[in-house]
């Protein structure tokens, strides 16, 4: 494979499962490469540097004064205002980012997420037992995706009747670059609809607060003032999008990994609680639900000998760093006892590290344990469908049947 011929902006590159061979080629032959946007709605936007090696990604991720999240973490071109409507404090730097993130940080801390455990267990149990009853399901749409959708909607305060719609909007906002989900031009409209929904919910909770996160945000003061309904709406959107697609993606791929690696599934089943923490980290490494994030160079600099100009976009391909041969032995293998496992599935470290990582670390072992207990001997019941997105490593469909020939 010729590394100079690989264009990460080409929609064809993202059809089907991730092209890991291409990323291995880039890591080996052209670890920092320039990509211009192909034909399509993003044609003519400024291209970007693609970082594919683990160490280079860490360098950029951890140096937030040199590599900024403003004006945007979107790979194409976007104004600062548009970016903050879509990503809120994800697309900010400095003290304002820290203050806004701190509002949520404690609630989503390792201790904080314990408050939501019982609810997560109830949702996961209902979904897995329903799948067991049916014997054959689409694990993506029937189990793995609805689970974190229900947890985050309850957390935020969105009623059960709106869960499906929230997930539809989230999937199209995050993976909308995929042609079958509308294409890049449609993405902004899905973010806007989520913001508007969050704003309406904030308005409602201002009148009659409940025990949910949107109501809580009305009680918080940052910089000496309360949030507006619109600001709460954007925070609602940030958490709903971040909390649904990612964990749903890992849960879906978990079933694919079980079918492809029955030995690892059997091993995990021998000690579902004891092995869960490490196994979840390994799934997040291999799957990397958010495949990249962008930074922007604040001044002229150099990364591993490559000159980078002030204002250049630098894109960290976590999906590649997580399979860097120099960091992980047999990087393509699913090895639930991998140790150490310094993966970058939640980011490469630093102030923008995934805020929901501990929520995912609470949710996924619950789903895994129930799956191992109730959905034995999974086998494919149809063709899996991958999201053709360069951002979200999702699956639209994973038909599976269980418990064949097993008395349950």
């Amino acid at each position: 494979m010729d590394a100079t011929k690989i264009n990460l902006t080409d929609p064809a590159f993202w059809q089907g499962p991730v092209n890991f061979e291409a990323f291995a080629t880039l890591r080996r032959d052209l670890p920092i490469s320039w990509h211009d946007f192909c034909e399509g709605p993003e044609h003519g936007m400024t291209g970007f540097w693609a970082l594919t090696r683990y160490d280079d990604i860490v360098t950029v991720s951890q140096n937030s004064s040199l590599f900024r999240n403003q004006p945007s973490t979107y790979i194409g071109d976007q104004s600062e205002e548009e970016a903050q409507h879509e990503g809120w404090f994800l697309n900010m730097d400095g003290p304002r980012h820290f203050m806004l993130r701190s509002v949520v940080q404690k609630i989503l801390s390792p201790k904080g997420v314990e408050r939501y455990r019982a609810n997560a267990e109830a949702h996961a149990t209902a979904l897995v037992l329903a799948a067991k009853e049916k014997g054959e399901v689409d694990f993506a749409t029937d189990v793995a995706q609805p689970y974190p959708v229900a947890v985050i909607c309850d957390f935020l305060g969105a009623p059960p009747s709106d869960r499906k719609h929230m997930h539809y909007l989230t999937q199209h906002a995050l993976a909308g670059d995929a042609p079958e989900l509308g294409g890049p031009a449609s993405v902004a409209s899905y973010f806007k609809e989520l913001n508007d929904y969050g704003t309406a919910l904030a308005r409602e909770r201002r009148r009659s607060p409940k025990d949910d996160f949107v109501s809580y945000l009305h009680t918080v003061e940052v910089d000496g003032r309360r949030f507006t309904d619109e600001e709460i709406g954007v925070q609602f959107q940030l958490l709903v999008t971040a909390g649904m697609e990612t964990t749903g993606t890992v849960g879906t791929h978990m079933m694919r990994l079980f079918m492809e690696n029955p030995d690892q599934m059997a091993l995990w089943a021998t000690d579902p609680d004891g092995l869960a923490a490490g196994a979840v980290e390994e799934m997040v490494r291999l799957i990397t639900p958010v495949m990249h994030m962008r930074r922007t160079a604040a001044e002229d600099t150099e990364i591993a000998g490559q000159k980078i100009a002030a204002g250049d976009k630098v894109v960290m391909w976590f999906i590649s760093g997580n399979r860097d041969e120099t960091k992980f032995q047999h990087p393509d293998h699913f090895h639930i006892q991998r140790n150490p496992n310094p993966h970058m599935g939640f980011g490469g470290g630093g102030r923008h590290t995934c805020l929901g990582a501990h929520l995912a670390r609470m949710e996924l072992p619950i789903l895994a344990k129930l799956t191992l207990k109730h959905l034995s001997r999974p086998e494919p019941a149809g063709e899996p469908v991958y999201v053709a997105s360069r951002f979200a490593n999702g699956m639209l469909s994973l038909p599976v049947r269980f418990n064949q020939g097993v008395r349950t």
Partner: protein
Amino acid sequence: MPKITFIRADGSQQVLDGAVGQSVMQLATAHGISEIEADCGGACACATFHVIVEPDWAGRLPPQGVMEADMITFAAGVTPTSRLSCQLTITDNMDGLILHLPTQQV
């Protein structure tokens, strides 16, 4: 095992045996030192791992990386010897290290 002493704001002390390779934060939280709130889990994203190094020890620890230097500016009551305990990996050279715990993290 390197012994590390944590001194609370009220003067009470707790001496813990650290394991080489673990972070000071991991050692402290595993022993219930609640002053280290550890909200982000150790990714250097929250500034709630603040400790103040006994001045004699400050120069003997590995220097701050760029990520720690950025994040520590957000901790409350930062002093010239402040560090984020999530970024301090325990080594044999840290036997006898003395750390003061702040009253408030951020």
